[in-house]
Each structure stands twice: as C-alpha cells, then as structure tokens.
C-alpha cells in the first residue's frame, strides 16, 4: 500500500469527521425520516468515490508507460497509436445509421405515434365512462342538481355570478348578465315588448310581434312580470295573456312561460347562445354534453325557486 492510498483514507475519514461535527451528527435522528439516513449514505459514498478516483489517476500519471501498436503514417515524426472502434460498438453504429434512415423517412412520417390519436382515444374513453356513470342520473334529483351546480359554477358563474344574480350592483343600468334568481328582468321585459322577439329562433314556437303595449303600460307590465307576477294584475296584461296564459305559464308550442324558467328553453339558450337586451351570451354547444346541458337547466330553474 503506497503513501497516496494511506493519505486518501486519512483524508476521507478527516473530511467525513469534519462534516459529522458540522451537522451535529450525534444529535441527528436516524430513526424517523429516512432522508437523514440517505443523506449520510450519500455523503460517505460521494467523498470516498471522489478520493479513490483521484488516487487512481494520480497513480496512473506516476506509473503508466506508453503501450500499443503505432499506425503506419506519421507526421514530421509524430506518430499515432492504432485505436480501432470496438467491434460491437462499430456494428451497433452501423445498425443505428440504417435504423435512423428507416425511422426518419418511413416510420416517423407515415406510421408515427399521434398525439391527436391519443387525444381522440382519451375523449372516446371519457365519453363512454360519462355515459356509463351518469346513465340514470335523472332518477336522482339531488345528484342531477349537484351536477348542474358544478356546471354552473364553471361555465355560468363567471358572468351570471356565483349566486346567479347577474353580478348586479344596483339598479338595472349596471346589469352585466341576466339575473337568474327570477325569470325576467324589467329591462328585458321592456325590450321584448318594444322590439318583439323571434323566440331566439327556437323552432317550436313562433315569433312575438313588437309593440304589444305602449306608453306607461310597458313600465307597469315590466314591473309586474319581473316581480314574479305577484300583486295586482295590470289591465294591459290581457294582451299578454292570450299567448302566455292568464297565469303566465305559457302554452305548449305557442309561447314560453314568463313566470318560471322552462328547462327546454334554458338548454336551448345554452347550446345556441343569445343576444338579449343586456348583452351577447356565447353558445356552449361543444363544451357541454346533453346531460350537462339538462343538468344546468335544472339548476337554473332551481335558482328562481321554480319546480
């Protein structure tokens, strides 16, 4: 054993000793968290390996002599040892060149893994799982409503507010999205009475003509309908009642309810969007599936207390 190896062992032990002293090795708890134990093992390994690799190369520098066969050529007396690639390595190298030509020109362009393919598989798998899991959700009203609430929170709440109040601050002037805690806002009723309505293009019903009421009647009607149709019925309501019914519940295939939210209508608005008196609502077709649309519609209905 030469001097260098002895020096290396002493140096390693000294270094570990110093580290032991600095981190307070006596007090380190090795029993609980394994991280301390692993750190200690790593410290010993790193220091010993470093020292002995250094020793190996110092020895080599001191003792090694040149060996090997000289190549034929030399330049101004400076020669070169023959240094062939190991055979296995050379074979691998040539195989890889061939493989890359195949991969680069054939395999990758024509037969590659496709991110979009994987995406399509993922979507198909999800849709199947969704259909299986929620096949009978409509039989469980509480669960159905919970689904509607989660859809509402993600897709509707940014505009209609977490409570569905349309982010109303004070008065109708500041309304940004429809207040869903009641069927209609006064501003919407006024707009529809004055301008008519094509019923959002909803095929099941016809359009409503403009100017069904005029003057103060518009305001009276707007307040009455927006107020949930409670209190004294204004005389002008007779014009509305012929289609929307005495009680405002609408008539199947003729006019929608103006007292409560119709689940079909909400689902229709969600999938087609709408341009109303307040602003433009985007369509959610393609974002929500049918079950989610119906669940959201049921939840919106529940917000206004309708059954």
């Amino acid at each position, binding site marked *: 054993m030469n001097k260098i190896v002895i020096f290396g062992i002493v140096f390693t032990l000294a270094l570990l000793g110093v580290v032991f002293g600095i981190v307070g090795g006596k007090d380190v708890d090795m029993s609980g968290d394994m991280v301390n134990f692993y750190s200690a093992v790593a410290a010993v390994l790193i220091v010993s390996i470093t020292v002995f690799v250094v020793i190996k190369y110092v020895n080599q520098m001191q003792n090694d002599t040149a060996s090997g066969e000289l190549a034929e050529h030399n330049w101004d007396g400076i020669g070169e040892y023959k240094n062939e690639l190991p055979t296995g390595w050379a074979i691998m190298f040539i195989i890889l060149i061939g493989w890359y030509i195949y991969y680069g020109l054939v395999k990758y362009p024509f037969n590659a893994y496709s991110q979009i393919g994987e995406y399509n598989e993922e*979507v198909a798998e999800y849709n199947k799982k969704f259909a299986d899991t929620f096949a009978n959700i409509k039989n469980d009203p509480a669960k159905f409503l919970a689904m509607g609430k989660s859809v509402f929170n993600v897709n509707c709440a940014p505009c209609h507010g977490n409570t569905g109040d349309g982010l109303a601050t004070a008065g109708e002037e500041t309304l940004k999205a429809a207040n869903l805690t009641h069927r209609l806002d006064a501003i919407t009723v006024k707009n529809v009475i004055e301008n008519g309505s094509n019923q959002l293009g909803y095929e099941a019903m016809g359009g409503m003509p403009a100017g069904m009421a005029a003057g103060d009647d518009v305001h009276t009607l707007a307040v009455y309908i927006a107020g949930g149709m409670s209190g004294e019925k204004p005389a002008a309501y007779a014009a509305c009642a012929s289609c929307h019914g005495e009680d405002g519940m609408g008539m199947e295939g003729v006019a929608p309810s103006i007292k409560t939210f119709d689940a079909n209508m909400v689902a229709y608005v969600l999938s087609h969007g709408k341009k109303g008196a307040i602003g433009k609502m985007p369509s959610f077709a393609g974002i929500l599936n049918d079950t989610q649309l119906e669940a959201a519609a049921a939840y919106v209905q529940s917000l206004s207390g309708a059954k």
Partner: protein
Amino acid sequence: MFSWLEKNPFFFAVGVFLVIAFAGLVEILPNFAQASRPVVGTKPYTVLELAGRHVYIKDSCNACHSQLIRPFKAETDRYGSYSLSGEYAYDRPFLWGSKRTGPDLMRVGNYRTTDWHANHMWEPAKTVAGSIMPAYKHMYTNVADIDTAWAEAETVRKVFNVPYNTEIPLQDGTTAVVELKDLAAEKTKALEEAAVIAKDMKRKDIEAIVSEGKIPEIVALIAYLNSLK
C-alpha cells in the same frame, strides 16, 4: 475502420454531402406539409386588434396567461378545441406563454363578451370570486397607439406578405378580406370599431373618450381578446 474513407477525398466528400443533404431534407420537407400552412379561416389582425395585442404584450398578460391549448380532454373541456400550429401564422411574435397563473386565452373570444371583459379588467376579484389577477384600471384612461399598430400591419404586409387586402378562404367555403388602407383611413375605421365596443362596455367614461377621437387601451385590448377564437 474508416481510415480507408479518410484517405479517399472523393468518397469522403460524397459521404459528407449525403449526410448533410439528408439532414437538410429532414429539416426542410415538413415545412411544405399542409399542417405547416395557415389553418383555413385564419385571418390577419386588424389595426385595432394589433393595438390591443401591443397592450397585451406591454402589460405582460402572457406572463400569466398562455395561448396554447394542449390536446387533453381536461383542456379542451375548459378552453375549446386544441391549438394547431397553423393558427399562429400571423402572430409575430407568438404569445404561447409558459406559465398558467391565469387561464388559457387561446379562444377566449368564444366564451367571454365585451362587457364581461370591461367588468373583469376593472375589478377582477368581483367578477371571478377568489381571482388573484390585479386590476388594470390604467387601461381605461391610457390611450392606445394606433399609429404603431398600423405601422406594424403595413410592415408585415410588405415584408412577410401577410395577406391583407387579399381574399382569405374561410371554413364555410366563402372568403373574407381584411383591409389595410392608409393611416388616416385606418384610424377612422379603428375609431368606428372602438365606438361599437365602447357601447357594449356600457361605460359612459369610455364612450366619452372615444367620442373625443381617442381609443382607450381597454377598448383595443377587448377588440384583440374578442378576435381570439
């Protein structure tokens, strides 16, 4: 093993040529694929939208918002269909972003509206409960730089041949033209577009600024965000 090749300059040159030519082919060929062309329906930005894009960059929206929807179900559920490279054809520079402190904005024009943005940028936490986005009230008074936006549009038209004043095919088979006229005409046009947006924002102060012939940064930014589809 290859010392014979090293001693034959001709074959060595042929070998070098083959290797470089192959590497070049692999790099160049994909650029001619359909997937590398602008997606059908991708239009260049109008001057007002470009001005909004400058505001977007100036206020570092891209530090918190990405514009790249990855092909995962969870992402397409929330943001819309996944992004294609050809959709960024007229983005100089692209604004992919690298971090989503806020949501992705690649298709924000599909599901947010002018008045929502107007509300949100004024006081984000009031519109989105728990939002940590800061308010950008200075955008409601600062005036957008239409001149620079026009200069950029004119530059990319001349230098990169961005198809302004050219018929662009749309997905439904029809075509559309994004016009780019001289500065004065573009300023008038931008002001008209701004007036429409200001009206939708339902803010009297913004409408007042626009009626003075100036365009607040928020109006340009909303025009840009609405164009992201």
